[in-house]
């Protein structure tokens, strides 16, 4: 699946997007964040505060407990500041 990062999440991770295949057992957005955070300190830094970590699966907003099975694109970003 493709992962995309925006705003300071992108800056902390150091890239705008990447392709990854999470291992079996990574079932939710929250699992995916934890797994990424264990792989590299940059991800842990990006996801350190769950209260300012947002996600979307194939565009719509999702909660941390959303299942990632079948997702093509998962985006991680901070709370939005548009308008």
């Amino acid at each position: 699946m493709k992962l995309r990062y925006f705003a300071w999440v992108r800056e902390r991770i150091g890239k705008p997007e990447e392709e990854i295949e999470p291992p079996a057992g990574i079932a939710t957005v929250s699992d995916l964040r934890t797994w990424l955070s264990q792989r590299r300190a940059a991800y842990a830094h990006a996801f350190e505060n769950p209260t300012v970590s947002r996600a979307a699966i194939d565009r719509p907003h999702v909660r941390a407990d959303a299942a990632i099975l079948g997702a093509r694109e998962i985006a991680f970003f901070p709370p939005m500041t548009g308008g």
Partner: protein
Amino acid sequence: MAATVRLQREPFDAGSEAAKLRRGRGDIGAVVTFTGICRQDEAGAPLAAMTLEHYPGMAEAEIVRHVEAAERRWPLLGVAVVHRYGRLEPGEEIVLVVTAAAHRQDAFAAAEFLMDYLTTRAPFWKQVELAGSGRPRGKIWIDAKQSDDALADRWTPHRAAE
């Protein structure tokens, strides 16, 4: 009802967007035009510029979703939303919301509803460049305001907590 939703780098003309919306229409009695503008300071610090990052595809989809919610909630006769992205300098327009209805209450309420949701739910992120005293003071991502969440939440008082 055909709504206009556009994301663009270029400036927009609020007057011509509003005029387009009501051209040839005799049923529209109220048009509300809201323009959000890049201020010259952020929390008291002078601003050199602001950069708006967005998530292409999702941004359009989220705006359309909220325009449709507004159309279900109020008897609207026209809606236009234009949101800019990229680098903007103080004084430049950021976002335009135009709502048309037979009566002003509906047009005002729908415009406010759309702005409250654009601020908290549309995937845009503001980064400001502060103008320092002779040297650049770097770029700062603007934090989301809890007061903005409260403004968006007032439209859904019975929504389950997220």
